[in-house]
């Protein structure tokens, strides 16, 4: 039985509180994660530690009230660990950091489960045990589990390069303390030293293996830390365990209840309720009994000389004399000063709280849709009015209506905009984990995270960006040894930045790694039978890595390099309203991938074209140019269907009238117009009868309103009220290639 069911009488329906709690918990976990990732491990900021402690503490409190026991117990142990950290009783180790991050993940999953987003309850047991193990293991030993290792390197096959040896020793000295021993750095010789570090043996070995093959590394079992340090370490930790394990065990409560007056507020002996307070872990500690309280109130006296209550705990330290209602100036003054200083902060916080409200996404989406309809209706009216040459009063009214409608639309769209930090926040964690896994040192630098974009893009942009960052760590950034050898700092850097350029968001993933290897790409292209001029410029060569299945990774790792790489990234970006991926790379200096996507997916800059009596809409971003077709421009090339020569390129010709089987479009051969478009599949010339104009269109999903159709990505409603299809150019261009092949 949980407290939520036992307490449902007083609390009533808990669903509202649950909803608030879920939001809060997500925010708290996100805050915990971001603070953990920015913590300086050597000297964590105490305010940071306090902030995460409070976050864990909040989650624990509410989850307990709501009966989410798994969340309560995980956050309870997490809180214990954080409490020791913030009090400086424990050193922040890599292990503790990892466990805390995983505890955050567990809370996230438990919340998802309670929300109904996960079918099965995740097992919180393992992480809880590990955390508890950590807390208990070192609770007696205190901070800095520095261990001493005796290291023997040898027998050496050959002398170690002196500079490398120095580098390694100074690296170890950075991590702890090094006591040099006999160093016989010669073939067949041995190098000995002692080292004292807080990291584990694995950390030590990984450093040593940079200069010596693994089989020549001998690390003796950790010895005890020197006595001087041990004395500091064994300082007892304040016995303060946050109230024991379970505060709200109903059985426990019942027991306590028996010891209490049966009816709340009943006049019983003063000693009775106070007896509840026995034990430092008591869930309830009444310092002043209600009876004393009432008696005092009647007297209305100042209690300076108040005698001790008879029910006081015998175990109490007499030095902690409770000045029950006393006021001590010395106690108050510093707090008042402190309060004054914080006043400003609070004002800002209160303002921020009042200035924002939470609204369901569905409501915003509805608003976007309705405004879209309004804009279209306005356009219809305006067109009607032009046709009928109506009253000028109407026309001024209509101009105003149009302006208001567009302003309204802009305002509504801005509600859907979120800062891109919502996407960027996951990368510090990813970089940390991947660089650990690949044995690389990587620093992530993020900028422009306040840039806003359509929230609908969050999910769609996250995967491609994750892929790019992975690529940078796996294939771009070299190992510390390689980097040092190349004269670069041992730690690599990845820059993740976002900015707005016109109607687009440009996201850049840049690394200072080894860059793309032109030679290997050309070799790989040859293996795959892709023809390319060996003297082609770099930009052209780099384009090859966007080919499906193209991977030059020398080893296939479990993270990237499976050959489903950049082509998938590019495709995923292109479907975002004609997003683009660019790439620059310099061998030895690094790679920059630039992703550009429209600000919003709900509105698109478009070009509308006429084919017979039908109107089609093309994403303007994909249109390169348009040209009138002269007699003889279009030629049939054996095996390649019809092509149009544009300067020195032969582009496949797509007759939209054929694609959509419109009855009367076939005429558009002479005097027609070719619109040159570029998409994932390459360039193509679309034959149309007329260009109708450029405009913003409100994108309507066909999936939700009708069904998916090949060659069509979505639809829109034109000014005259007719539905027009927005073309899926990637598909159509591919179709052009295939169709041509099939005909010949």
């Amino acid at each position, binding site marked *: 039985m949980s407290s939520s069911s036992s307490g449902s009488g007083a609390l009533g329906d808990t669903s509202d509180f649950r909803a608030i709690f879920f939001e809060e918990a997500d925010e708290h976990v996100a805050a915990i994660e971001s603070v953990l990732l920015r913590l300086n491990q050597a000297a964590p900021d105490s305010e940071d530690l306090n902030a995460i402690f409070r976050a864990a503490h909040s989650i624990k409190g509410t989850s307990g009230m709501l009966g989410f026991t798994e969340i309560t117990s995980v956050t309870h142990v997490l809180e214990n660990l954080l409490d020791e950290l913030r009090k400086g009783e424990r050193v922040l180790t890599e292990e503790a950091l990892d466990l805390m991050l995983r505890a955050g993940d567990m809370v996230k999953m438990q919340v998802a489960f309670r929300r109904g987003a996960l079918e099965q309850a995740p097992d919180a047991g393992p992480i809880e045990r590990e955390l508890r193990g950590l807390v208990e293991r070192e609770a007696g030993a205190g901070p800095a589990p520095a261990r001493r290792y005796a290291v023997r390197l040898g027998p050496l096959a050959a002398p170690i390069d002196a500079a490398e040896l120095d580098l390694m020793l100074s690296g170890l000295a950075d991590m702890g303390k090094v006591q040099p021993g006999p160093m016989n750095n010669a073939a067949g010789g041995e190098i000995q030293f002692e080292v004292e570090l807080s990291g584990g043996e694995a950390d030590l070995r990984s450093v040593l293996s940079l200069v010596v093959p693994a089989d020549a590394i001998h690390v003796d079992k950790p010895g005890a830390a020197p006595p001087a340090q041990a004395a500091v370490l064994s300082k007892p930790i304040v016995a303060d365990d946050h109230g024991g394990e379970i505060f709200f065990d109903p059985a426990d409560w019942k027991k306590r209840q028996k010891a209490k007056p049966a009816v709340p507020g009943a006049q019983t002996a003063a000693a009775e309720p106070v007896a509840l307070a026995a034990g430092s872990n008591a869930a309830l500690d009444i310092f002043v009994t209600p009876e004393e309280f009432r008696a005092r109130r009647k007297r209305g006296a100042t209690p300076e000389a108040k005698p001790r209550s008879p029910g006081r705990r015998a175990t109490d330290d007499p030095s902690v004399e409770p*000045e029950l209602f006393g006021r001590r100036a010395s106690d108050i003054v510093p707090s008042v000063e402190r309060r004054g200083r914080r006043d400003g902060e609070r004002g800002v916080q209160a303002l921020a709280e009042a200035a924002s409200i939470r609204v369901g996404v569905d409501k915003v989406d509805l608003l976007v849709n309705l405004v879209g309809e309004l804009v279209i209706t306005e356009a219809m009216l305006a067109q009607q009015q032009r046709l009928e040459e109506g009253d000028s009063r109407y026309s001024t009214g209509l101009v105003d209506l149009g302006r208001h409608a567009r302003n309204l639309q802009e305002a509504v769209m801005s509600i859907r905009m979120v800062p891109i930090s919502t996407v960027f926040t996951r990368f510090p964690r990813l970089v940390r984990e991947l660089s650990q896994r690949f044995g690389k040192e990587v620093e992530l630098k993020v900028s422009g995270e306040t840039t806003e974009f359509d929230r609908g893009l969050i999910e769609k942009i996250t995967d491609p960006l994750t892929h790019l960052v992975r690529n940078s760590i796996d294939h771009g950034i070299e190992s510390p040894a390689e980097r040092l050898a190349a004269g670069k700092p041992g730690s690599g850097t990845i820059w993740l930045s976002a900015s707005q350029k016109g109607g687009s968001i440009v996201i850049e993933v840049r690394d200072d790694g080894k860059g793309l290897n032109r030679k290997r790409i050309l070799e790989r292209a040859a293996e795959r039978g892709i023809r390319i001029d060996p003297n082609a410029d770099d930009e052209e060569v780099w384009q090859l890595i966007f080919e499906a299945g193209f991977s030059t990774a020398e080893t296939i790792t479990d993270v990237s390099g499976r050959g489903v790489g950049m082509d998938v990234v590019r495709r995923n970006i292109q479907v975002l309203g004609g997003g683009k991926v660019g790439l620059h790379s310099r061998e030895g200096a690094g790679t920059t991938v630039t992703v550009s996507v429209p600000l919003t997916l709900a509105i698109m800059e478009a070009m509308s074209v006429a084919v017979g009596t039908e109107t089609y809409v093309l994403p303007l971003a994909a249109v390169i140019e348009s040209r009138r077709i002269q007699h003889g421009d279009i030629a049939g090339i054996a095996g390649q269907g019809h092509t149009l020569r544009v300067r020195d390129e032969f582009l496949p010709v797509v007759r939209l009238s054929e694609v959509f089987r419109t009855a009367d479009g076939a005429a558009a051969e002479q005097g027609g117009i070719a619109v040159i478009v570029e998409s994932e599949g390459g360039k193509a010339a679309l034959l149309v009868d007329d260009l109708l104009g450029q405009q913003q269109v409100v994108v309507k999903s066909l999936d939700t309103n009708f069904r998916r159709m090949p060659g069509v990505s979505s639809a829109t409603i034109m000014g005259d009220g007719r539905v027009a299809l927005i073309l899926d150019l990637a598909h159509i261009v591919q179709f052009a290639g295939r169709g041509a092949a099939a005909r010949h």
Partner: protein
Amino acid sequence: MGKSILVVDDTRSMRKMVVAVLQGAGYTVEEAGDGDEAFEKAKKKVFDLVVTDHNMPGTDGVTLVRLLRGIPEYDDVAIIVLSTETGADLKAKGREAGATGWMAKPSDPEKMLAIVRQFID
């Protein structure tokens, strides 16, 4: 008119739950999201009882108790700290500051009500 209670907690969900329990029992409840806000409210109006969280950014619960005890009108007002922290040291500090009682959070709402009733009615 019902007795008035001030509920102080920086965690919105927890605060709302405590408020709901107390309102359900017929008390007039006001909320504060942190110790400073609580202190400001308390200066303007004397509540019949205060329930406060301890761990809050800025002014924490124990400090709030001390501040409130600095206001003469709060001499006779019960102040109950509701906290997930129940370490003896901290409780001693709370007691020293002038708290009337200390309850472990999470707590059974019925029990919380019972305690509140003992001090307010």
